[in-house]
Structure formats: structure tokens, C-alpha cells
């Protein structure tokens, strides 16, 4: 780099940050199919592969369904396998996503979250992630490009942990994060190599001395037991993540947790959300705090498995809470809203909740929109009806 360089930071978009993590992981197989706004991820990675920066076998699939099928095959064979997608691509993968998690294959998929058609829209919301919330994948959300990079490395360790063995999606908000150039710190290649370690698959299909079956017929005799084991596996991710996060903090100086509390300890009003809008909320909170208003934020980083206990504990003493879903569930409340409200069902003491939907199809949500939510919470303007933030 140039001589004027006064910093360790790199200028990377969220997409490039994901690709940088992939370069350092150097997976055996990456299957790819382009879709906006994910394309910068595979585009950057393909360039790295072409320049000999990785030894990955790249499979240019003819569809997302095939891309996910290819990484399922590769992962079952014993390879470290990764892919990336968005929106319709994730929808098209859905069938195979359930197969990946059911077979307990620790595939890592970078997802640049985007709205679902129709109407056609290429911009960011989290509908695609919510569509697959019950697919048995770990779902981890990132606020900015730095978190994308860190979450990619952490989720690999988490997915491959023998007590977890569950595929993971690493989310970033489409365009807002995927296409925005930001300051990102990278770890040294050698440090990453040591952190992720060598992948030793437990039951590789290609180990012909120890033959195994993947995807066998499993009727009323054992399907239920296998599903129960799968539930146990993803559930273990909560505890395992804590250990991996601590280890990661030691090598990076960046300490993560399944949830992030921002000025929440003494807060009387709070917002709960996932993804890039967390930063906007933090800025609004700082301004409100200067005026003596006790506002806080709870950012959900890990949505699956759902860290219910931690969330319940952190919200228990808050008076009024707005839950922001960046995905609609037509005919019902948003997924995050439902999950959090359920935690307090039957509780003696519970915050008052306001369910909100925001940012659909990339609708810009700014400081004033978030400010208005806090103002309403402060005034006690709470209703059972869903509030639509920024809707005209």
C-alpha cells in the first residue's frame, strides 16, 4: 500500500469484506450463482481465485438450487463448502437448505438480504432471511462491513463445532452494507488460519473405509429422533458461540455476543432490531441521552438459534419497547416481534411492546424516523396495531 498510509483499516464494502473472509478461510469448494445485491461477494471471490489467492474449486452453477445442491454434495463428501445469495436466490435454494441442515452439513452462506418479489425490488430488507427462519440454519446478522467479516470467520467455527454441526447464514443488509465502502480491519492470514483450524469431517462420504449414508429414507421409525438431534445441535450453538466469541475477542480485540446492548442497563425505553439500522439507533440514543431521556437499544446478532433467555433478561426492566421487523409477515406480526412477545407471555412483569415494520424494499430509515419511534415510546403512545415506519 501507499506511503501515506496512516491506518490499519481497509476500504471494503460488506460484499468485499465477506469475500476477504472467504479468501482467508480458503474453502475447498465454493458454488456460485450471481444475484443482486450478493454479486460483489462472489465477484470478488472469483477474482481472488483467478489470481491464485485461494485453492478453492469454484463451481459456476446454473441456478441457486444447483449451487446449494453442489455445496451439499461437497460438504457431505468432507469438504469445506461455501456459497452466497440473496432474495429470490435464497427462495430458490430453500428446498435444498432444509436438506443441508437435516444432513448436519456445516456450510457457510453469505447472504446480502433483499426483499422478495412481487413487486420486483432489488433493495434491502430481511424478508429472505425470515422466509428461511425455520430451515434449521444458524442465522447471524451484521450491522456493518466489519461485523460481516468477523461473523464469517466466527460462524465457520460455530457451524463446524462437533456439538453443533449446523449450516450458517451470515447476513448483511443488501446495498446498505453490501455496497457501502467502509473501514474494515482484517486479521493476518496466519492468525485466521490458526483460528479456524483444519476441517476434520466426522463422517465424510468419501471415506470409503467407513461407509455412511446421507439422505436416506427415514420414515416414522427414526425421522422424529433425527429431527430432535438436529434441534439439539442448533440449540448447542448458543453456548458454543459464547466460547468462540471469547476466543475471537482475544485475537481481534472485538468482543461479540448473541445480543448487543447499547445503553440499555438503565434505559426506560428501547428499540430491538437486527442489522445496519442499529447504528442509526445508537446515534439517536446518544442525542436523547444528552437530553436526559433514558433510551437504549437491543441489537439481535443471533436470530437462530433464538437467544430467548438473554433477550428476556436484557429487556425485563425496560418500560416500553418497540420491536422493529425489517420483513412483513402478512396476516401476522413480524417474526422478531412474535418471538420477543412470546418470551414475556405469562410473565408477572413485562415491558409494553410496540410492533413495527420498517425498511421494506429498501425504504430509507433515517435518524428522524428512529427518533420518532423513541418519542412515541417516551410519550407512552403504544398500540396493539403494527406501526409502519416511513410508510407514505
Amino acid at each position, binding site marked *: 500500500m*501507499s506511503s*501515506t498510509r496512516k491506518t490499519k483499516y481497509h*476500504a471494503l464494502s460488506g460484499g468485499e469484506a465477506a469475500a476477504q473472509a472467504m479468501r482467508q478461510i480458503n474453502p475447498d469448494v465454493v458454488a456460485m450463482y450471481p444475484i443482486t445485491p450478493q454479486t460483489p461477494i462472489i465477484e470478488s471471490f472469483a477474482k481472488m481465485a483467478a489470481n491464485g489467492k485461494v485453492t478453492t474449486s469454484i463451481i459456476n452453477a446454473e441456478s441457486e438450487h444447483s449451487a446449494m445442491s453442489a455445496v451439499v454434495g461437497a460438504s457431505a463428501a468432507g469438504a469445506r463448502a461455501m456459497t452466497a445469495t440473496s432474495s429470490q436466490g435464497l427462495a430458490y435454494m430453500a428446498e435444498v437448505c432444509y436438506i443441508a441442515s437435516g444432513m448436519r452439513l456445516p456450510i457457510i452462506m453469505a447472504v446480502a438480504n433483499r426483499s422478495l418479489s412481487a413487486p420486483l425490488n432489488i433493495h434491502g430488507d430481511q424478508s429472505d432471511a425470515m422466509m428461511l427462519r425455520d430451515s434449521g440454519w444458524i442465522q447471524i446478522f451484521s450491522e456493518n462491513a466489519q461485523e460481516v467479516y468477523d461473523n464469517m470467520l466466527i460462524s465457520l467455527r460455530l457451524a463446524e463445532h462437533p456439538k453443533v454441526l449446523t449450516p450458517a447464514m451470515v447476513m448483511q443488509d443488501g446495498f446498505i452494507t453490501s455496497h457501502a465502502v467502509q473501514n474494515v480491519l482484517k486479521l493476518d492470514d496466519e492468525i485466521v488460519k490458526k483460528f479456524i483450524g483444519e476441517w476434520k469431517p466426522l463422517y465424510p462420504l468419501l471415506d470409503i473405509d467407513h461407509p455412511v449414508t446421507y439422505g436416506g429414507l427415514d420414515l416414522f421409525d427414526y425421522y422424529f429422533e433425527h429431527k430432535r438431534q438436529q434441534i439439539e445441535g442448533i440449540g448447542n450453538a448458543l453456548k458454543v458461540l459464547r466460547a468462540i466469541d471469547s476466543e475471537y475477542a482475544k485475537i481481534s480485540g472485538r468482543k461479540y455476543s448473541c445480543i448487543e446492548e447499547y445503553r440499555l442497563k438503565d434505559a426506560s425505553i428501547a428499540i430491538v432490531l437486527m442489522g445496519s439500522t442499529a447504528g442509526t439507533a445508537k446515534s439517536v440514543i446518544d442525542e436523547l441521552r444528552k437530553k436526559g431521556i433514558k433510551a437504549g437499544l437491543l441489537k439481535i446478532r443471533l436470530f437462530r438459534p433464538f437467544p430467548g433467555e438473554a433477550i428476556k433478561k436484557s429487556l425485563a426492566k425496560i418500560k416500553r419497547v418497540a420491536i422493529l421487523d425489517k420483513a412483513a409477515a402478512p396476516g401476522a406480526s413480524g417474526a422478531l416481534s412474535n418471538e420477543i412477545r412470546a418470551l414475556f407471555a405469562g410473565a408477572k412483569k413485562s415491558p409494553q411492546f410496540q410492533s413495527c415494520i420498517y425498511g421494506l424494499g429498501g425504504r430509507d430509515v433515517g435518524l428522524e424516523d428512529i427518533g420518532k419511534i423513541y418519542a412515541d415510546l417516551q410519550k407512552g403512545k403504544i398500540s396493539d396495531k403494527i406501526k409502519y415506519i416511513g410508510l407514505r
Partner: protein
Amino acid sequence: MENLFEIRIHSRGGQGAKTIGQILAEAGIEDGKFVEAFSEYGPERSGAPMQVFIRISSEPIRVHSNIKTPDMVILADPSLLGMVDITGGLKKNGTLIINTDKTLDEIKPKLKTSKSQKIYPINATKIAVEVLGKDFSGIVLMGALNKINPIVSKEALEEELEEIFARKKGKEVAEKNILAFRRGYEAV
């Protein structure tokens, strides 16, 4: 964040405004700043009006929404004058850099500016065509920006130009782009 500086560029798809954002971001980071650069993508086609947003600060940048109250607005495409809301949200003491072949008195009626807002007209297209042989006026405008507000140092920007263009297009192209940048710097 009092030290946050926000720039909005009005351009058309295919004119390289996104590249300006990228160069400013990379140079800003090399200069020890925190930056964010992104484009507002509507229908992605050449010639469609588009906006590029750039934030520069000495502190980490947390807000990622569109820039609504910029400190500086750059109009890269003269044909957008009077067509899109260029001055919308511009701060009271904000700055406008307008790529135009007209004089300040000629363009002023088309801009709803207050007295405290400064307007810098510059014929960036003419300079770009002269130096680069094509209307890559963004580089020239970046020079003007740097003169008006050296929030990212001249050295870092020139070094970044050198690096990006030498890598992609060779040393000769890099030198021409640095010259275009300097001509922009001197023109305001």
C-alpha cells in the same frame, strides 16, 4: 458527531461518480479517517440520474442511511440542473460545486440557495475533455472539492489516483488523471 462531513453527488449512471466515492473513501481511510461511500441505485442503466453519498469523520461512522443534510453537494452532470433537487437539505453554511459552462450569475436563478451557502461553478467537463480526452469530469470536481475543503489530504488523493489508475490503466493514464485533478484544484 460534529466532525462528520457529508457529501452528496448528483450524477448520471456511467459517468464515474461511484469511482469518485471509492477514491475519496480509500484516500480518506489512508489518511486515517473513517469513511463511508455508497450509491443510491435506482434502475441501473447508463444515463439514469443517480446519487452518490460520502461520509468522512474522525470517529467511526454508525449511521448508514441516505444523506439528507449534506455539507457539500456536487453536481457532476450539468443537464441535471433544474431537473433534480440539488440544494435539498443542504446545510445553511453548505457548499455547492456545479459542473457548468455558465457563470455564477447565469446559474444562480436556477438554484434555491441562501446567502450563507457558497456556490462554486467550474467547467469540469471542458477541463476533463482537454486533459483526459473524455468527460470523466468527476476527477476534476474532486480537485475542486479538495481545494474548497481538504478534509481528505491532497497527498492521499493524488496517491490514490496514482494507485488506482496505474494499476488499472497504466502510468500514463494515472498521470493524466492527476493532472485533471490538479486543474480542478486550481480552477476554483
